[in-house]
């Protein structure tokens, strides 16, 4: 008889609620965010921006600004020593708009100053005289597609056009439903504003930049090109990052800060305020999506047609990749053999858009989940049943022809979500804080109607279309101390904690030091695309395994044991075939081991002209059920509860998973009912937290989360990324719940009060 005793995981290892090394400092206020950095003899920098969305710069006069006491340097496009352009995919965005050239969005940088005080900077910016020839901005994406708009940029007004054509186009459904959907421009709205400190090398031929970013090495590549320096002369150190959500993928103040530091020979810091932040980073693409579903009478999807238009704003950023994510997720987590999808990402004079949590899938999911409810109604089937009926499984073929070889527990996610108890009915005399309108006391019990809605999503993880977004990690043992180093941007997600958990688990040690996060080790890729647990987790794991192999080899040789029989048991090395046991700490006390390892995911392919190809690495799934209380007469909403079951592969830190889920749901709720950058004729009308509304605690729902743990064999730790899925299908779930409560069609998000009641 075999008796196996499973001991609980050791404290701080994988699967436990290991505490975060940065947690206490963050809660107590001691953590140094990027905006807290400081250097002796430091100057402040500031950026002059165009007030016009579309204009030609006739002249820039900096004479008056130079005369202001305390101004150390003023730089314009002519002062950029290298390439006056940057961009993640194509370099089409100038560091500064040049005299004679165009400004293409309201907020585009024109000059930067460094001075002895932020107030001096402000005065200097006011003293710079810029003469513009102002044009009518191009703000309608359809005009760009039709070729009727003036050319905004030499690269053209369409970033990318891609079709997906698959299956039998002649198939028609017994039941056909269609809709035109619109998604507003959401902001990432991280709390830790953009900030950087650049310290020039004493010789003036290099620079060190402390920066809150998502990808140190990509920043370095672009900065070095703009500065005309070799990459090794630009060293980046991660500053404390207060959230990212995609908004720190692109260059914002990096080049400006370095340039000012190099020109003055003094440390320079730039820190944006909230208003400037709205102009300093890219946003979520607003999109218009038409979608038509064909189904059999009993609700099986037989064909999907769609047209998606993403407004990328003035510069390319990641628009082509966002578009591909959108169109390749048209079908959602459902089986579909036949499809025709036409997608455009276009350039306008609106604010530039790029990465934001969900990356194109948020827009597609809003449309397909709205469609699923329409289809359910048209077929007379329950919204849950129709989703179960069409649920995708491992081995299914996507409309791109790619086979889903990830674990795909769509049905399990839906069933587990449905099993979560519904919240109790609203009591007869509820507290005003618990009902729509909240502190405004707008409603009484009799004005409120409850609705339930569903959303289910599929989300790709890692970069796509042939991109090798590898990650690097280094693990060292020296003087008995284990140190792990990586360039993975810790943006709040907790990778620093996860890296320690991995090292503790693999090496059987309790203490794990983390080296500075900087460019003194290979690239980690971006902290985005739900990829760092998989990719950098994979790299740290591989580096620790490489070190462990050497430790084992040493033990085997020293104690004359078979290396194949050795294993880590808790904090000991044990011989699984004998009685030998030695503490890891004793073994490593005199060892010097240093291993650096890269982790690569399997290669992916480009899409062909019909949108066919294995373009994605892997997928994760999630279901959301929203319960809302609506005041239909005033159009106000209180989201009561969001229940969710998420496919995570394996939970590595339960508390962190819940954190991602709760945060993502709040962000998805924001898009559903309040978060929108209002842009009129190219100008942002609400660049502040007074008017760009984020959910408060009174708006955030109770979250009931279940994790579907089915070990993902493709993933190095068996875990999938958990960052993006929580914020994707919750938005249509809430919209569907409001539709359920009101009977309104509500084709756009955010749903504004007047959309509901007028």
């Amino acid at each position, binding site marked *: 008889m075999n008796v196996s005793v499973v001991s609980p995981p050791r404290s701080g290892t994988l699967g436990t609620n290991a505490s975060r090394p940065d947690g206490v400092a963050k809660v107590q206020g001691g953590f140094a965010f990027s905006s807290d950095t400081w250097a002796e003899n430091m100057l402040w920098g500031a950026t002059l921006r165009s007030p016009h969305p579309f204009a030609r710069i006739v002249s820039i006069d900096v004479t008056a600004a130079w005369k202001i006491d305390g101004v150390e340097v003023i730089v314009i496009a002519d002062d950029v020593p290298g390439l006056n352009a940057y961009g993640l995919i194509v370099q089409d965005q100038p560091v500064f708009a040049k005299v004679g050239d165009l400004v293409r969005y309201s907020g585009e940088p024109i000059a930067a100053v460094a001075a002895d005080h932020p107030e001096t900077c*402000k005065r200097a910016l006011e003293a710079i005289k810029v003469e513009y020839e102002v044009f009518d901005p191009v703000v309608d994406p359809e005009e760009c597609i039709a070729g009727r708009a003036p050319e905004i940029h030499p690269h053209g007004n369409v970033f990318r056009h891609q079709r997906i054509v698959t299956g039998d186009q002649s198939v028609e459904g017994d039941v056909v439903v269609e809709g035109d959907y619109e998604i507003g421009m959401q902001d990432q709205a991280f709390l830790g504003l953009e900030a950087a400190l650049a310290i020039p090398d004493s010789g003036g031929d290099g620079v060190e930049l402390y920066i809150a970013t998502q990808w140190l090495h990509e920043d370095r590549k672009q900065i070095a090109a703009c500065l005309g320096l070799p990459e090794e002369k630009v060293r980046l150190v991660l500053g404390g990052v207060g959230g990212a959500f995609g908004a720190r993928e692109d260059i914002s103040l990096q080049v400006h800060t370095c340039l000012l530091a190099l020109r003055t020979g003094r440390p320079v810091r730039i820190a944006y*305020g909230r*208003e400037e932040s709205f102009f300093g980073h890219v946003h979520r693409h607003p999109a218009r999506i038409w979608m038509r579903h064909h189904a059999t009478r009993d609700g099986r999807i037989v064909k999907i047609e769609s047209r998606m238009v993403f407004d990328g704003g003035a510069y390319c950023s990641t628009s082509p990749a966002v578009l591909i994510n959108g169109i390749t997720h048209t079908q959602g987590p459902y089986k579909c053999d036949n499809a025709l999808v036409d997608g455009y990402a276009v350039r306008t004079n609106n604010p530039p858009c790029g990465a934001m949590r969900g990356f194109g899938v948020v827009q597609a999911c809003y449309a397909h989940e709205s469609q699923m409810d329409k289809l359910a109604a048209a077929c007379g089937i329950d919204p849950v049943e129709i989703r179960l009926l069409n649920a995708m499984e491992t081995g299914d073929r996507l409309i791109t022809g790619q086979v889903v070889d990830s674990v795909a527990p769509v049905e399990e996610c839906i069933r587990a979500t449905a099993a979560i108890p519904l919240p109790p009915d609203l009591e007869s005399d509820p507290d005003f*804080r618990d009902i*729509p*309108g*909240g*502190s*405004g*006391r*707008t*409603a*009484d019990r009799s*004005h409120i109607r409850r609705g339930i809605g569903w959303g289910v999503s599929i989300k790709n993880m890692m970069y796509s279309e042939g991109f090798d977004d590898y990650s690097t990690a280094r693990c060292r043992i020296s003087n008995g101390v284990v140190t792990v180093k990586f360039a993975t941007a810790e943006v709040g997600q907790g990778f620093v904690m996860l890296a320690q958990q991995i090292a503790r688990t693999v090496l059987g040690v309790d203490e794990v030091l983390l080296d500075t996060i900087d460019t003194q080790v290979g690239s980690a890729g971006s902290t985005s695309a739900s990829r760092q647990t998989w990719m950098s987790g994979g790299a740290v794991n591989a580096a620790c395994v490489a070190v462990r192999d050497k430790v084992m080899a040493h033990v085997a040789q020293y104690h004359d044991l078979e290396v194949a029989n050795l294993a880590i048991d808790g904090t000991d090395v044990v011989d699984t075939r004998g009685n030998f046991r030695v503490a890891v700490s004793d073994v490593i006390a005199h060892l010097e081991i240093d291993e650096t390892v890269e982790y690569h995911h399997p290669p992916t392919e480009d899409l062909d002209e019909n949108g066919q190809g294995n373009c994605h690495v892997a997928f994760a799934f999630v279901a959301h059920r929203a319960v809302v209380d609506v005041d239909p*007469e*005033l*159009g*106000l909403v*209180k989201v009561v509860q969001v229940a969710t079951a998420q496919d995570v592969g394996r939970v590595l830190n339960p508390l962190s998973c819940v954190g991602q889920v709760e945060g993502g749901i709040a962000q998805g709720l924001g898009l559903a*009912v*309040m978060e929108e950058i*209002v842009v*009129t004729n190219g100008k942002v*009308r*609400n660049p*502040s937290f*007074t*008017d760009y*509304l984020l*959910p*408060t*605690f*009174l*708006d955030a729902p109770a979250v009931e989360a279940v994790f579907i743990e089915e070990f993902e064999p493709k993933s190095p730790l068996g875990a999938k990324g958990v960052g993006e899925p929580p914020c994707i299908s919750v938005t249509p779930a809430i919209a569907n719940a409001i539709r359920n409560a009101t009977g309104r069609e509500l084709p756009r998000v955010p749903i*504004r*009060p*007047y959309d509901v*009641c*007028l």
Partner: protein
Amino acid sequence: MSVALPTSVGEVVDLLAHNPEATLLAGGTDLMVEVNLHGRRPGDVVALHRVSELRTWSLDTSRRTVTIGSGVPYAEMETGELARLVPALAEAARTVGSPQIRAAGTLGGNLGTCSPAGDGLPILSALDALIDVVGPNGQRQVRFADFMVGVKKNSLQPSEFVRSVTLPLVEGWQGYAKVGTRNAMVIATASVCLVRSIDHVAVALGAVGPTIIRATEAERWLVANHVMSSPPNVETLSEFGRMVREASRPIDDHRSTAAYRRHAVGVLAQRLLTRSYS
């Protein structure tokens, strides 16, 4: 920039008499936004925090009025005795910003800024508050209706400032309701204060015009056509709501539309009237 730190109303009067351009600073919840976000550079600042008289309130039982110093923060109006005496003001105070803002913001600030969306102002309007103004020529009382004269415009003369606000204690019911696109911590897109006694009703509308608007025709119509001691029926409510909507003069802006604001004040007024009988 200079900052004066007076400790008495007399000192404030003197400071403003000598420097009519000086900027008053109380909670700073408006001024610091102007400074930090809109680049305003106040020349000379008179900080009122140390003027303890402005931070107190008092009850006059014989006249049946309550006088609230212009520096009393909203947090103090939310609960306790003041909330019991002027419940609509407590409800309005609860809707102002976050707890931090309510600990700093004051009625004096609402009156100084005179934004149509100021949460305290519909209460002052509906209760026919008297604004106690002090200046180099002594003090005077101004009816709220004569105090707020336009968007961010009041009738203060140079060197005058608001010492306090005097409100009548009203027999009957009073309440405030405010619509925003978030369930807390939001600027009003439309708000209503309704005060009802046995023979009188007052309805003041916020954020739907250049000033706070009294729906006087709706008020008169209700008193004339409705038995005030009994709850209104559907027809009465409908006509009352229509007349309130008619009284509003809202605009479209980035926060909402004129059509929604007009609709919302009608709904809020109907609901407050109904609530006043429950």
